[in-house]
């Protein structure tokens, strides 16, 4: 290559790099009316959830619809749903990193933040469900005067370890990934407040070869550690159910079934969040049909696994010859909870079948709609597994029909608002795309632009 061509190519690269900085940092500009309006709505809904929680704390857990035999219901449904949502973040950032899947670069920061905020949301529910929140420290193993220690045979204690590890490692992974990008924001900050904020958060990062060398290694090991963690966390959550003898729960396929479901719901949530973000911040050149198609294929794959698991579950119930197992699944399909069961089957199995068509996979409108349906379907999957199984246990005289009260509904809505509040704050204060990695692996449209600049 001649010197002239090299210089031209270098100039073109620098031009594209500047553009990446400009476009991604534009998301940190002063928020507009749309952002403020969304935040106002989110805060109002959150306030409603807080009021419901305070009312429950003051009155007692009787204000929920919980009564024997359904002692786990919407609150635990929310817990499992949000832990599931948290899954695709680390899948996209860690597992796809190890597989060198290039499409992850544009969306992994958003999914990582989603992971951290979803775990923060999920973590609230075991505490809320306790009723007497102030006793939650009983779960923590520490030397105490009562000489009590946790019962390590209980899956709930495993869950405490799994979720807190997942939250810690996801946060570390997110922060380590953010350091070089915060340094970019620091170098371009216009206000004193931002300069100080990013200056402190970037920890004096300068991108020297020594720093990158250790950073790249640590990032690789973190990805390696996070990969089995992703698979373990939802397996452990599934054992909260599978270790019990309740018909509909006591199954060995629960771990892979829950992990696939978690990734399925998580990818759907990534799509739900990424599409409006792309539109609002004009990131069309960074997230295009190529990324959408890849995410859609991931959604289709996990939907197929979930579909298969549903069929296996029904088949196993029939093949087991157990009257109780058969009764639970008959009830799920045709009984009092059939409405919830069919919402779950339609949203998670039938609607995603449309993703076999490329036209659907690359349509922004249809992908957004499908992702919403999947979110609804996966919430109902958790509801059906938890509530319907408990409501239809062994003895017919125990069977019952659970109805959530306004308190549980308000807390559920409040949880969505809590999650969105953090997300809205994040996109205005920290880079929602991985600037340094985007420069390394330019998205297809920017690669084309670089070539055009070189030719010019």
């Amino acid at each position: 290559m001649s010197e002239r061509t090299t210089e031209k190519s270098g100039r073109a690269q620098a031009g594209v790099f500047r553009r990446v900085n400009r476009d991604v940092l534009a998301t940190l500009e002063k928020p507009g009316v749309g952002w403020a309006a969304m935040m106002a709505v989110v805060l109002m809904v959150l306030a409603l959830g807080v009021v419901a929680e305070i009312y429950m704390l003051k009155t007692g857990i009787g204000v929920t619809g919980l009564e024997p035999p359904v002692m786990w219901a919407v609150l635990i449904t929310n817990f499992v749903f949000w832990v599931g949502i948290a899954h695709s973040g680390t899948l996209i950032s860690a597992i796809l990193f190890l597989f060198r899947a290039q499409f992850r670069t544009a969306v992994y920061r958003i999914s990582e933040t989603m992971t951290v905020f979803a775990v923060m949301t999920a973590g609230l529910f075991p505490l809320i469900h306790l009723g007497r929140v102030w006793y939650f420290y009983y779960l923590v193993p520490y030397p105490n005067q009562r000489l009590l220690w946790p019962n390590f045979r209980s899956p709930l204690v495993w869950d405490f370890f799994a979720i807190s590890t997942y939250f810690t490692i996801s946060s570390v992974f997110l922060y380590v990934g953010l350091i070089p990008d915060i340094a970019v924001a620091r170098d371009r900050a216009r206000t004193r407040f931002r300069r100080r904020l990013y200056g402190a958060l970037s920890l004096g990062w300068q991108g020297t070869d020594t720093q990158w060398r250790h950073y790249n290694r640590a990032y690789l090991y973190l990805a390696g550690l996070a990969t089995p963690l992703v698979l373990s966390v939802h397996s452990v959550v599934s054992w909260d159910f599978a270790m019990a003898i309740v018909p509909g729960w006591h199954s060995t396929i629960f771990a892979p079934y829950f992990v696939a479901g978690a990734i399925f719901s998580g990818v759907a949530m990534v799509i739900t969040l990424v599409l409006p973000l792309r539109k609002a911040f004009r990131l069309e050149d960074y997230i295009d049909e190529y990324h959408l198609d890849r995410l859609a294929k991931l959604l289709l794959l996990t939907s197929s696994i979930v579909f298969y698991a549903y069929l296996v579950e029904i088949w196993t119930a029939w093949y087991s010859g157990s009257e109780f197992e058969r009764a639970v699944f008959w009830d799920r399909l045709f009984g009092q909870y059939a409405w919830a069961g069919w919402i779950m089957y339609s949203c998670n199995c039938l609607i995603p079948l449309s993703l076999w068509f490329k036209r659907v996979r690359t349509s922004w409108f249809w992908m957004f709609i499908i992702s919403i349906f999947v979110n609804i379907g996966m919430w109902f999957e958790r509801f059906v597994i938890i509530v319907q199984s408990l409501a239809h246990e062994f003895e017919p005289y125990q069977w019952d029909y659970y109805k959530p009260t306004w308190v549980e509904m308000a807390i559920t809505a409040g949880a969505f608002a809590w999650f969105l509040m953090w997300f809205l704050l994040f996109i205005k204060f920290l880079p929602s795309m991985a600037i340094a990695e985007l420069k390394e692996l330019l998205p297809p449209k920017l690669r084309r632009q670089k070539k055009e600049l070189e030719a010019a």
Partner: protein
Amino acid sequence: MSAEVMERGVRGAFYTLEDAAHAVEILEEKGFAQDDLTIFSPIPTAEIEDRLDRPRSPVRYMTLTGGILGCITGFVLTYWTFFAWPLHVGGKPVSSFPVTVVIMFELTVLLGGLFSLAAVFIFSRIPALTVKPGYHPRFSEDLFGVFVHTSEEEGKRSARDILDGLGALEVRDEAQ
């Protein structure tokens, strides 16, 4: 700060990482020590590591230490608990190994991850309160920098000549 303790050197900027890495190779050939050369890069490319023949990052040992420590902690915590507060149920043994595996695994990942984070901090020398000499905000944007740490006039002149000769965009003396 007095002039004596100021760290000085020569900084050159390049459009591409290849050019910056090439400059470092030439500088090393001309007798500059590896420790006196720093590359600033806006991208996390592994090429830096491949081109520069630097020692392998010791982060791996920290991660391994954290993982092993976590695994042992998980084992000790659960087994100690089994016997410190024995729960006798249906004549079954008070200890249960499969249960221990879950806690051992989680703590392996937890401490392995935290030790890796600590390793980045320790080996990359962050948090840093002062900016290293030679840094320029454009090194986080679109340019790659090479900084030669040298306070002798002769060294500086030689570094300037080499960087100029390699077509660096801007060559200047730096002091902090």
